[in-house]
């Protein structure tokens, strides 16, 4: 009697297959870029522009700086096309460059006064959080306050913990991939995430 395959195993396999195809596709595109195919670079940019900019934005909490850093990320990808070898996952390599640049930028800006980013984000929050059904002024203000608190809580995390949380929560990355980006072991990533979420739960407990 044939055993029926459970639904979740089928969907998991489909998901894994799709992920594998995406990985191969990125590597294939990058190899084509290496061989001088500009169209493939356009496709790569199309696929990864959003995730990289959003990640950088949450890291440095300033959209202008995030876009500037993202430009540098893609410029570096283009510059290193000649030496590209598909030994690691393309997104791991991409986010490693992005994280490196973000951490450098944070270190450079740490001493600067007048950290304008949070004000910047609150305006952005107003623009982004308005759904089709117009919320009341009180609801809007409450959302702004909550968003500000979330941003501040994330900004207060140590750099590596912040990068790990952003990749885990918003980029939906696996532990192994985050470990590849941060150049540490998988167990170190789990520990980083556990401590980071512990801190965030304590800081944002009043929002529960």
């Amino acid at each position, binding site marked *: 009697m044939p055993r029926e395959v459970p639904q979740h195993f089928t969907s998991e396999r489909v998901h894994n297959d799709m992920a594998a195809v995406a990985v191969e596709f990125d590597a294939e595109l990058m190899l084509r870029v290496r061989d001088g195919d500009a169209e493939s670079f356009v496709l790569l940019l199309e696929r990864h522009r959003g995730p990289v900019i959003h990640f950088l934005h949450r890291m440095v909490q300033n*959209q202008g700086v995030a876009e500037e850093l993202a430009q540098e990320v893609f410029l570096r990808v283009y510059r290193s096309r000649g030496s590209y070898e598909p030994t690691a996952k393309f997104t791991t390599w991409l986010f490693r460059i992005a994280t490196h640049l973000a951490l450098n930028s944070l270190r450079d800006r740490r001493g600067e006064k007048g950290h304008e980013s949070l004000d910047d984000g609150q305006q952005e929050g107003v623009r982004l959080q308005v759904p089709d059904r117009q919320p009341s002024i009180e609801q809007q203000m409450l959302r702004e306050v*909550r968003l500000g608190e979330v941003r501040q809580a994330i900004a207060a995390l140590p750099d590596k913990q912040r990068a790990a949380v952003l990749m885990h*929560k918003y980029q939906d990355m696996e532990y192994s991939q985050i470990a590849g980006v941060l150049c540490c072991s998988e167990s170190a990533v789990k520990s980083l995430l556990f401590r980071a979420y512990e801190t965030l739960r304590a800081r944002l407990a009043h929002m529960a």
Partner: protein
Amino acid sequence: MGMQCPIQAREHPEVLLNYCAGKLHPETTSLLHEHMQSCPECRRFVKAQTALWNALDAWQDAPISPAFDRRLYSRIAGREAQKGVFGRFWDRMPRAPFSSAPFRWQPAMPVAAACLFLTAGVLLYVPAGIPTREIPVENSRGESLAVDVEQVERTLDDIEMLRQLSPAGQPGAKSATAPDSRNL
């Protein structure tokens, strides 16, 4: 068989995080559900982590500047133009044989330093067998002095010239440059 408490078994803290993120394997999920019925600590953890997960959802993606791609392409074009003929030539330079690895500067630096050191050594080296142009002389106190041959020759010439200029070439004449005031 029931599940071991993920909080007490510190080696598996990610089980609860994965559960709250909706990434836990369905089989493990049902085991965790069963465990949580008898574990208030895990229930508390899941409640707090789910609330945090939802709170973090408030931070949505910001819109990207429409000029982003254009700026990037113009930077790439600018760089390509800056590279010019030399850059394109460099790009096409053959790499190390049987390898597609790019040329790296790091191994070349010690070799360059060694070449520089050898060149400096060759330029500064003076063989011991070649005599110098200095001759040892002694002063009145018997101290050894190094005097240049040319300098001695020039001095002898000057003395000879002064001797010719002095009246009647007397050896007792004082000096041609400081004539005796009695002769004026």
